[in-house]
């Protein structure tokens, strides 16, 4: 019992102090939202409802993981909307080519996302084009390709059984597969960011790319791989969404750009790069999903939701995301 030499309050303070204030605030907001929601509807705290929310959150979680990696570099990926759509549509398109297509549907969808991400990565890392510009451009090109492919309508191909199973099935009783997938991807990301040289390089580049380069990091390759990963994860999110809705749609990704950025930023990842943890992103994703859920329970129209998103992001950024002043 000699370990209890530090008073409880001190230990608590030390434990809290290790966390980013943003993450603590995000979790506090989640609890506040749950309490507020339980006043509104008694079923808000039931395990079924919470698991359902976690399942919805896992789609955003997968997409936000890629966004986080790019934001850690101090860049941004605005090609998320059509990377998601490319993933969903191409997976469904592959599924239309018989049994062989069904097997390769998911890898093909993700590979197409990697393609979009690689163009972004080469543009940012090797051609030194500002990331927001090149990702906007690839987003437009991806949209153009999909419009030509589908003829402007929602594609008729439907998702494969495997995609539906990943998004809606249950491998472990009462835990949706989507949640398991998010947990797996989350674990892999934490490992990648904290236990590998690639992860350390991502943080280093986010802090100062020039210093990382002079320290012998192949910064351009790391940036390119991070963008490819972001494209892959967006497309995989699209695959899951297509499995969830059992088909892909034209604008399926539009609703994910702003929430993905918001989730990463609300979780305390610095928009300037180099600082942030995956725990924060998890908190941010759950916070955004709960907020969406409560707003839809309250039957808030789309207009109100957009305004609330915008205001919440600005408010949280003003709290944590300010650049240093000129002095």
């Amino acid at each position, binding site marked *: 019992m000699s370990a209890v030499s530090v008073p409880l309050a001190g230990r608590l303070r030390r434990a809290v102090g290790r966390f980013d204030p943003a993450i603590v605030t995000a979790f506090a907001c989640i609890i506040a939202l749950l309490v507020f929601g339980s006043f509104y509807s008694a079923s808000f705290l039931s395990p079924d409802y919470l698991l359902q929310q976690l399942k919805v959150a896992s789609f955003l979680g997968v997409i936000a993981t890629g966004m986080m990696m790019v934001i850690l570099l101090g860049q941004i990926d605005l090609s998320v909307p059509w990377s998601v759509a490319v993933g969903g549509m191409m997976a469904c398109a592959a599924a239309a080519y018989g049994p062989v297509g069904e097997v390769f549907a998911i890898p093909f969808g993700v590979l197409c996302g990697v393609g979009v991400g690689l163009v972004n990565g080469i543009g940012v890392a090797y051609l030194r*084009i500002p990331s*927001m510009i*090149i990702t906007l*451009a690839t987003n*437009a090109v991806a949209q153009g390709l999909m419009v030509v492919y589908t003829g402007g309508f929602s594609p008729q191909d439907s998702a494969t059984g495997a995609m539906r199973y990943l998004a809606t099935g249950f491998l472990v009783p009462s835990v949706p597969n989507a949640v398991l997938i998010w947990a797996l991807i989350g674990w892999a990301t934490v490992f990648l960011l904290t236990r590998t040289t690639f992860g350390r390089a991502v943080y280093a580049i986010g802090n100062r790319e020039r210093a990382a380069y002079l320290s012998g990091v192949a910064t351009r390759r790391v940036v390119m791989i991070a963008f490819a990963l972001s494209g892959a994860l967006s497309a995989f999110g699209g695959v899951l969404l297509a499995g969830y809705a059992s088909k892909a749609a034209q604008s399926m990704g539009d609703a994910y750009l702003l929430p993905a950025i918001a989730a990463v930023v609300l979780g305390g990842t610095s928009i300037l790069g180099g600082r942030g943890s995956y725990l924060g992103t998890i908190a941010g994703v759950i916070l955004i999903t709960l907020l969406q859920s409560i707003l839809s329970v309250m039957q808030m*129209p*789309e*207009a109100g939701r957009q305004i609330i998103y*915008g205001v919440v992001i600005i408010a949280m950024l003003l709290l944590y995301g300010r650049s*240093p002043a000129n002095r």
Partner: protein
Amino acid sequence: MNEGRFWLNEQRGTLTAFGIFLLMFAIYVGNHPAGLTANVIQTAANKGVLLAFVAMAQTLVVITAGIDLSVGMIFILTNCLASWLVVGSAVETTFGVIAVLGAGLLCGALNGAIVVFGRLQPIVATIATGAVFFGLALLLRPFPGGSVNEDLADALTGRLFGVVPTSLVALAVVVLVVWVPFSRSLIGRAAYAAGSSEIAAFMSGVPIRTAKFAAYALSGLLASIGGLFLTFFTYTGEAAFASGNAYTLFSIAAVVLGGVSLFGGKGSVIGAIFGALAFRAIGDLLFVFDLDPLWQPLFQGVVLLFAVSLGAFALFRVRNRLEWFE
């Protein structure tokens, strides 16, 4: 370097944009079934002027090394607002126009306040304010509708003396009233200085905060003039998310084509206007060559990707690899 060559060097981007525009427009008119008639020019001008206003708005912010990803949404919001306010008698219409322009200025000032005094990254801040502006537009017009003073609308979208499109004249007037005074004022020079090197400008006592704030606010004003003209062309207001996003995107393409540096401190609104007109002409080339309109988004996307990749040629001039990481 003598005076003339210096001037030529400074205007190179603008002149290139003008050249691209002339070439593209010549191809467009040359293959148009109707040929070079006043009608063809009027239609092309009306389409081009909308993007030109939004591109002007984007230019002001880009000159300060910022970016405004909410211009398209301000454009949409003021379109919805105008479809409520710019109606009725001459006096009511006048107040309506003033209110719409004021709203645009206010949106821009909000962006400016958040970016300059809140010290947030312009990309994320303007994406977020863009969501707010779109939400407001949706509140104003949950469904497309509304109306506009048609006399004013027809006057501003018609032809002067049967030849000159009025919208082009309006564009020229806006350039003379907003851009020329701004670029020649202390604030305007400070905006260029802030974009060129913020730290050096700050150290030299240049009023960079006022300049950046003014750039964002005026950008909102210019976007609202665009929104007003959109209402004049369509007679309705519509909170179209895709259209707002497209205008934001195309404004960046126009700015790049117009020789305005995305890193700030270089370029002019005139270049961006020709960039916008050229971009529209390129987009419309598909129609005169009778291609499927389905290809248009892809074609415009590829043009955009190509335009932004042009900046990479500067890498050949880099002498020290560390300059990659500016």
